[in-house]
C-alpha cells in the first residue's frame, strides 16, 4: 500500500494519504510531510518529541498534528523521519516522533512548506481503508 500520493493543485501541494487504521493514517501523514520537505531516508532517529493534541474534529486534528510537526521543524530546524501514534480518538492524539536537527552536510531541503491548510481537508474511511486529503501551502 502506498503511504500517500499527490493530487495536483496549481499553486500548492495536494496530498492524499492512506492508512489501514486511523493511527497508521496519521503516521503516514507525518511521513508524507517530511518526505516532501526533505530526503527523509537521510534523516536519523536521534531524538524523540512527544505530542498531546486536541481539536474539535478528526480532520482538524490532522491539521493540528502536521502543523505542530511543521512548527518544531521550522523553529528548531529539526527534521522528523518516524512517527508513532500512541493513542487517538476523534478529538485527541498522543504521539511520538523521531528525528534529528537539520545539518547542511547531511540533509537536503526540497521544499519549504509554509502551512497546512483546511482547503479540501477530509478524513474518511472507504472499503476498509482510511483516507485523508490535505493541501499544503508552499
Amino acid at each position, binding site marked *: 500500500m502506498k503511504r500517500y500520493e*499527490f*493530487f*495536483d*493543485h*496549481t*499553486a*500548492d*501541494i*495536494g496530498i*492524499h494519504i492512506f492508512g489501514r487504521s486511523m493511527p497508521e493514517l496519521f503516521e503516514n501523514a507525518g511521513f508524507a510531510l517530511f518526505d516532501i*520537505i526533505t530526503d527523509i531516508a537521510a534523516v536519523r532517529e536521534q531524538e524523540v518529541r512527544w505530542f498531546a493534541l486536541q481539536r*474539535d474534529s478528526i480532520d*482538524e486534528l490532522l491539521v493540528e498534528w502536521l*502543523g505542530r510537526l511543521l*512548527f518544531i521543524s*521550522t*523553529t528548531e*530546524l529539526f527534521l522528523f523521519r518516524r512517527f508513532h501514534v500512541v493513542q487517538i480518538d476523534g478529538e485527541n492524539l498522543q504521539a511520538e516522533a523521531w528525528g534529528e536537527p*537539520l545539518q547542511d552536510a547531511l540533509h*537536503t*531541503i*526540497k*521544499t*519549504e512548506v*509554509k*502551512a*497546512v*491548510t*483546511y*482547503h*479540501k*481537508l477530509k478524513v474518511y474511511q472507504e472499503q476498509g481503508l482510511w483516507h485523508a*486529503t490535505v*493541501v499544503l*501551502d*508552499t
Partner: protein
Amino acid sequence: MSEKFSLATERIDAYRLRIPRQGKMQTDGIVYTDESMLPNIQEEQSLMQVANVACLPGIVGNSLAMPDIHWGYGFPIGGVAAFDMDSGVVSPGGVGYDINCGVRLIKTALTKSDIQSRLHELVDALFYNIPSGVGSKRKDMKLSSRDQKNVFIKGARWAIEQGFGYAEDAEHIEEQGAIPGADPEVISDYALERGRPQLGTLGSGNHFVEIDFVDEIYDAGIAEALGLYKDSITVTIHSGSRGLGYQVCDDFIKIMLKASQKYGIELPDKQLCCAPIKSEEGRRYLAAMACAANYAFANRQMMMHWVRESFEKVLGARPGALQMKLVYDVCHNIAKIETHSVGGRQRELCVHRKGATRAFPAHHPQVPDDYKETGQPVLIPGDMGRYSYVLVGTDKALEETFGSSCHGAGRVMSRHQAIKAAKGRSITREMEDRGIYVRAAGRETLVEEIPEAYKDVSQVVEVVQNAGIGKKVVRLRPLGVMKG
C-alpha cells in the same frame, strides 16, 4: 480530484466573465479574463472559489477575480472582495498565510551597459548579503521582544530608524510602510518564536530578488515621473512576513473556525472561516494581521538596504551615489479598511486582496504627492525568464474593482508538474542561454519556478490594460535573479 464543476457563467465583454448569483451566493462573481485564458481557469476549481466567496455574509459589490486568477485555498489567488463594516466579515483565508507578501521596485542611475560585465558579481553579492532559502535566519541579529513589538507597530519606519534606508523611502510604501491598528498583544508565543529569527530574510519558493532593465516604455510621461528610462537598471524584491505571518494565519484560522460556528456563518469551505469585522475575533485578527503586515514592510526595507550595499560595494560607489531609490512597495496579500464609493455613497469597507494589488488612480488621497498626477505604481512580476511590468492604477479600477489589479503571472503548472517537466534539464544553463544569470538556494526551487510553470504575464497584463483596471507604463526584463 480534477472533477470539473458546472457553474453557470456568461460573458459580459471580451475581458470579463460573470458568474451569475446561484445557489447560496449573495452576489455575482466577476472574473477579469479573456477567452484564451479561460480553459486553464476552467481546468481547476478557481471559479468555484469565486462563487464560494460570494456566499460570505455582508459582501459588497461583486466577488471579483483578477486575470491572474488560479486555484488557491479558500479564496482564489487573484481574489478581491469587499465587506460591509457592520454586516460583513473578515477572513484570514482571504488574506492568506503569507500576510503582506508583496513587491518593491528600486530604480537606479545605472544602465544595462554599466553592469553587464559585473552581473555575476552583483548576483553573488546579493546572495551573500541577503539570507535566503528554507528556514533562513539571521545569525548576526537577535531581535529582543521589545524590538519585535516595535517592528509590529512601526513597520518599515522601524527598519529606517535602525539605519536600514532613508526616511524618504517610507513615502513610497503602501500605507507609508505601517498599517494602523497593530496590537502586539494579540500575537501568540508560537508566532513570536517563528518570526524572531527570520526578519531580514528572503525565504524560498517564489520569493526572489531580481535585477532587471527597462526594456519597453508604453507611457513615456508616466515612466519619466516614476524615474524609469529605457535600459535603466531596476531591482525587484518579492518577499513577505515569513514564519510570523504563516503562524498568525494558522492561529486565527483555528479561532475563526469556532467563531464561524458561534456567529452561525455557513462555510462552503473551511478555509473561508471568518468572523464579523467588529466582533472580538474580527478585531483581534485585524490587529494581528497588521503586525504581520508591518513585519513584512520592515523585512523588505532591510533587504532593500542590503541590495543598495551590495551594488555600492561591487561597483565601488559611495553610499547614495547610485541613486537607488524606491519606486514603490505594494502588498499582495492583505485586508484593508478603505473608503470606496458604492452606488454614489462613500462607504467604509474591509477589502480583501488575496494575490491582488491595490491600484489607486491619480489624485487619490492615498497616493503619494509625487505620484498625484500619475496614479499609484502597480508592480507585476512575471516568471524569471520573461518579463515584469510596471503599471499605474486607474479611475476604472477604483470604480469596478475597489481599486485593485492583478499581482503576477499566476501558475499554470503545479509544483509537482513543474518538477516533472524539468527532469534532466539544467535550468541554470537554459536561463544563461537567455542572458539571465540565476542563483538559487535550493535546486528544487529553481525547478518549480521554470518559466513555463507560469502564465505569460504579458497576456495577464493585456487583459488588465484592455479592461481598464491598470495602465501599462514600462516592461522590465530580467538580467540576474536570486531565488530563495
